[in-house]
């Protein structure tokens, strides 16, 4: 078993993504804590141009794994190509960002290798070189410490923002790049992916809003959304929502904030009856001020709140609207 930390650098449409650099930052930290070396790996067809970009990050090398069958992402292609590399190199850890792509193939890869995969981690504790990974459970109500029990290689993915792109150490000189051909034949790829597309041009751009009032399940009924709209109007802001509200058709999908919706960073984010599951938090935790009103004191939204009110939003929002109007008039 080597002490190698293999970092999966995700590319989309032949571009290195921010999650790729976050994974590099995670891999560099694990290597520093465990005395290992970092190797970055990128998959695709004719992606050597991406390798030189990755080579700027401090690592002991960049590995380009190429095959025509890897031109488009497929779980079959990626799991097969990575399984080949991991079997031959026997790294200690394989580090991923917890993206939609990684969720799609990493469990398959782990199963094919017969190894463990701890997914969607926030970070880890280092107990004398033994790493204990921290992840959220029960929709963020609790955290869990999780450790690997079987043999390495160990696969681990980190949630967006757990490690920062700007903390990636740059090397003094470019890292060496090597290219290997992946053992993936076209007929081993069973799914046929189409182009990425957006449903319609997003009518509402919440990313530029200075104030957002967002509603979650706690709003209880579609007719109550009007109350949130009045608060948004009083504050001169936009209306947003958590996923269940849009799933239920109470507000259109283009109002959705979170991992599958828009990522916003307003001056003020008001969360009304939103518990703040991680899928929602990743879309709004960059907000400068967060006011959370929720009847459940344990709701994870309070972890990212500047101002918190534990109580019934229907008792607090009407007087709040009134006070805001008074303040603006005065």
């Amino acid at each position, binding site marked *: 078993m080597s002490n190698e930390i293999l970092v999966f650098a995700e590319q989309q449409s032949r571009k290195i993504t921010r999650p790729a650099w976050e994974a590099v930052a995670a891999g560099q930290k694990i290597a520093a804590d465990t005395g290992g070396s970092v190797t970055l790996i990128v998959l695709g067809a004719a992606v050597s141009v991406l390798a030189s970009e990755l080579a700027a990050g401090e690592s002991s090398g960049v590995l380009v794994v190429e095959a025509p069958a890897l031109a488009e992402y497929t779980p079959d292609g990626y799991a097969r190509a990575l399984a080949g590399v991991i079997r031959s190199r026997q790294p200690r850890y394989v580090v991923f960002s917890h*993206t939609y792509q990684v969720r799609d193939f990493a469990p398959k890869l782990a199963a094919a290798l017969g190894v463990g995969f701890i997914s969607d981690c926030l970070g880890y504790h280092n107990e004398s070189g033994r790493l204990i990974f921290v992840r959220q459970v029960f929709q963020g109500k609790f955290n869990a410490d999780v450790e690997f029990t079987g043999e390495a290689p160990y696969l681990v993915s980190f949630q967006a923002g757990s490690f920062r792109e700007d903390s990636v150490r740059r090397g003094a000189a470019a890292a060496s790049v090597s290219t290997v051909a992946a053992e993936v034949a076209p007929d081993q790829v069973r799914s046929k992916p189409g182009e990425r*597309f957006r449903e319609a041009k997003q009518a509402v751009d919440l990313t530029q809003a200075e104030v957002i009032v967002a509603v979650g399940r706690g709003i209880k009924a579609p007719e109550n959304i009007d109350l949130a709209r009045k608060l948004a109007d009083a504050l001169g802001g936009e209306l947003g929502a958590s996923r269940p509200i849009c*799933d239920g058709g109470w507000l259109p999908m283009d109002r959705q904030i979170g991992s599958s919706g828009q990522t916003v960073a307003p*001056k003020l984010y008001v969360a009304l009856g939103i518990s703040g599951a991680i899928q929602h938090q990743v879309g709004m935790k960059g907000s400068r001020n967060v006011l959370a009103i929720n009847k459940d004191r344990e709701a994870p939204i309070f972890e990212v709140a500047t101002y918190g009110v534990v109580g019934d939003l229907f008792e607090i929002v009407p007087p709040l609207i009134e006070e805001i109007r008074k303040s603006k008039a005065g």
Partner: protein
Amino acid sequence: MKIVVCLKQVPARDSLLRLNPAGTWIQETDISFEVNEPDIYALEEALRLKESQGGEVVVCSLGPARAQQAIKEALAKGADRALHLDDPAFAGLDSFGVARVMARALETEKPDLIVTGLQSDDFGAAQTGVILAELLDLPHSTIIMAIEVQGGAIKVKRELEAGFFQFIELPLPALLTIQSGINKPRYATLKGIMAAKNKPLKKLSLADLGLLAGDLAPKQRITRVYVPEKRANTEFFEGSGKDIAAKLVDKLKNEARIL
């Protein structure tokens, strides 16, 4: 078309969760359980496919005796029969262990399609479905928002980040993990509830499946579950609605400088 729906029970959304004395999981007594939300959407999708294509919907659930409640709900909504994977050796399995048991139970079923929710609301690893696909050597796709049957193949709409989607074509048999919001789940009718009582429900234990406890050895272990540290600087406001409103406006005006 034979469709298997894998679903699990999780603590009801409004349950007040407490940790167990060892601090390694929640206290499962004194709370109510419900079907994991994304699994409800997976079941609905399976029922709609059966209605348009004909065939059979089989529910597969791993869990203790209480899981029968979830199974009965699925049968009442229109599933035809159920497999209940129940054995003391199945308690606390990781995703790999659960998938291993399910793979063994479904090997002989040979479904055309397996659907399950994209993740569970408890541990939330989002892995069991994908591991199951690998163990059964099936092509798969995840986070699905639409399914269209095209003869011996399917075309699915997969959700990607930031409002993007992608169509993917897969040959059958295949496995899909379903995203919440793909459809409007139905409620069980009284007639359905009555009919469910006579639908076949097969219980399968470790021995029935020809497995040994060692086959399910975990790849990962929870050492501790705990309340996350709160952000120290959250300022809480109490009092009457009017008091709170006045204090908040003061903060928004003088501290956050929004007003």
